[in-house]
């Protein structure tokens, strides 16, 4: 840099010039400096390379204010009777959901790498860490590591991209709050058809604590498969739909407190999304999923009595979002036990109340990187039969690299 400057200065002053040339020369000098400035931006570090060789990094802060008519102890003990028992972690008042780090970059010409690290007040989690191939022929792609399964619609989306602050009842009941995030491999195939069709198969460790088992000692214990098809109805509206299935060995304590269940589980899913973007400022989205879980195995109750348990239960949600400019209005209705509500313990059929919930939400997004949401749930899913009237005030902020959005 110094040498270059002195060289330029010498060049400027060493040769006699006409007055009108000076201006051009100054201009040249300025330009030379500018290009040096550009070089400085990609300056070499100790280990070589440049700043541009860093992965793309973004950070998403998800904060929440929560309020409910129930007492903290009632909230803590809440469970969906006959479906599942899981600790409810959201506290009344201020909550810090997470500050989520997201890294992504190509590894080499053959792989892209994605890593999601949500940091909460208590822990640092490795939620996702996976590679995706980019160069396989014939429409195949391989994903491996730890990733959100392609099962269903909401499951593979990041929580902060959801249209509501909390998961719908069938997800909570059959997969738990986190969804199906597993270690394993995924193969997908995109045939060269006139319309979009994606077929996928996954071999998974099977560590979902609700559907499979926490900390599986051997694997793969679970498998998943899915198909998704999409049609453009016209220039402005698109339909995406398809079936999914996940099945495997189950060993879980989430049905009731102090119990154990060992057996086989199959979870079926159907998804449908319809998006209608009728102008640059207005859009409408309708999304629905139907989940059905079939389970058979040995149930060990709190008194160590073992008996056969058979569960065939289903659940669904339907949600609509209407967007006008920076505002989004959402409504959701979700429930369990729509067509199937079978719970047979030791030959005895048991009946539980039919859980349902109605939700309304309003969002204001000052920019693409900020989301402010007010949500109300009228929740009739609790085992005790009490109504949970809950309010979420959520604020999500994103800084750093701009990741592309999936459909």
């Amino acid at each position, binding site marked *: 840099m110094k040498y270059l400057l002195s060289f330029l200065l010498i060049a400027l002053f060493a040769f006699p010039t006409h007055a009108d040339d000076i201006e051009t020369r100054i201009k040249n000098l300025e330009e030379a400096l500018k290009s040096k400035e550009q070089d400085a931006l990609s300056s070499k570090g100790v280990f070589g390379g440049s700043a541009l060789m860093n992965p793309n990094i973004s950070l998403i802060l998800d904060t929440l204010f929560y309020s409910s008519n129930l007492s903290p102890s009632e909230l803590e003990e809440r469970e969906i009777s006959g479906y599942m028992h899981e600790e409810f972690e959201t506290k009344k008042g201020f909550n810090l959901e997470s500050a989520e780090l997201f890294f992504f970059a190509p590894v080499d010409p053959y792989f892209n790498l994605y890593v999601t690290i949500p940091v909460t007040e208590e822990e640092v989690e490795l939620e996702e860490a996976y590679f995706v191939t980019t160069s396989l022929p014939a429409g195949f792609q391989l994903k491996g590591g730890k990733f959100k399964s392609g099962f269903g619609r909401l499951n593979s989306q990041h929580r902060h991209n959801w249209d509501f602050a909390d998961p719908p009842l069938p997800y909570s009941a059959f997969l738990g709050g986190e969804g199906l995030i597993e270690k394993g491999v995924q193969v*997908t195939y995109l045939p060269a058809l006139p319309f*979009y069709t994606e077929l996928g198969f996954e071999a998974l460790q099977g560590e979902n604590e609700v559907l499979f088992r926490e900390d599986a000692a051997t694997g793969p214990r679970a498998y998943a498969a899915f198909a998704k098809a999409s049609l453009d109805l016209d220039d402005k509206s698109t339909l995406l739909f398809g079936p999914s299935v996940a099945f495997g060995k189950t060993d879980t304590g989430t049905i009731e407190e102090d119990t154990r269940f060992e057996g086989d589980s199959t979870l079926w899913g159907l998804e449908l999304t319809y998006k209608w973007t009728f102008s640059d400022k207005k859009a409408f989205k309708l999304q629905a999923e139907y989940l059905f879980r079939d389970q058979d195995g040995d149930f060990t109750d709190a008194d160590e009595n073992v008996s056969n348990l058979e569960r065939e239960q289903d659940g669904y949600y339907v949600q609509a979002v209407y967007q006008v400019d920076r505002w989004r209005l959402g409504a959701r209705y979700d429930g369990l036990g729509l067509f199937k509500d079978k719970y047979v313990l030791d030959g005895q059929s048991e009946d539980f109340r039919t859980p349902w919930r109605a939700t309304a939400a309003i969002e204001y997004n000052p920019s693409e990187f900020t989301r402010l949401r007010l949500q109300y749930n009228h929740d009739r899913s609790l085992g005790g039969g009490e109504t949970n009237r809950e309010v979420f005030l959520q604020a999500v902020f994103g800084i750093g690299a701009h990741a592309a*959005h999936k459909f």
Partner: protein
Amino acid sequence: MLIKAFLALFTTLLLSGPALAAELNVLATLPWIGSIAKDIGGDRVSVTVLVKPNQDPHHIEARPSMISAARKADIVMFNGLDLEIGYLPVIIESSRNPKIQPGNPGYLDCSRFVEAIEIDFKADRSQGDVHPLGNPHYHLSTSRMGKVGRGIAEALSALDSGNRALYMANLATFEKKLAERRKEWDGRLKGKNYVAFHRFFEYLAADLGFRITGYIEQRPGIPPSSGHMAGLVASMSREEPNALITTSYHGGKAADFLSKKTGVKTIVLPHEVGSREGIDDWFDLVDRIVHDLSGE
């Protein structure tokens, strides 16, 4: 004998088939890129465009059908400078098409061929949805389009070297037409002043010698504050620009308000090839904009 003849026929078909029939599948993100790809590729290319002419290029969502289109592409041509950052990376990765992955000859960032203006590496998002790599709307630059045409011709030649002569001939025709039109466009808007909604016409202004003296949008992607609007009313009343210019998807209400307050007329300019009837290629687009701006 019959088998031999059949084999010979089969071999001939196999060898000649691709050379005769297979056109290059070009996937262009924006209509103007598709237009130039057609000019250079002629009937050797089949062009698919992802973004519709009436859409706002800043707010595009990846649709699964775009992934299907990318699956079949021999080359993807895009604007670059982060204009497509919200949807193109996911389309390219999901396409499972090795030909169009970054680093391959089928991955063509058209901004590579132009010198961007308004580069600001120190920018952050407090200034709105900024583009640190520079103003991405170079598609209206009459001085840069020749280089884009040449870049596209080179890229097509690299993929389909047998037809290099054809692409270069088409490029020569394109360059000649560009030189002729530039003579018509140059000077017609010299000295004029406009107020614009978005930083969309800066390249054209620099090339054709008009000035943009103010913006309705203080920060890209963020609606203007009332204080800023009041300031604009004052400055526009004082400076009396030739017109207020915007596009069909940007700030209709704000522009109408300012027009009413100041008496400065609003011109809604076509922003893309195909956005109005009669705008069938890039030359038509610039023709129409120059025509509308000069008020003839």
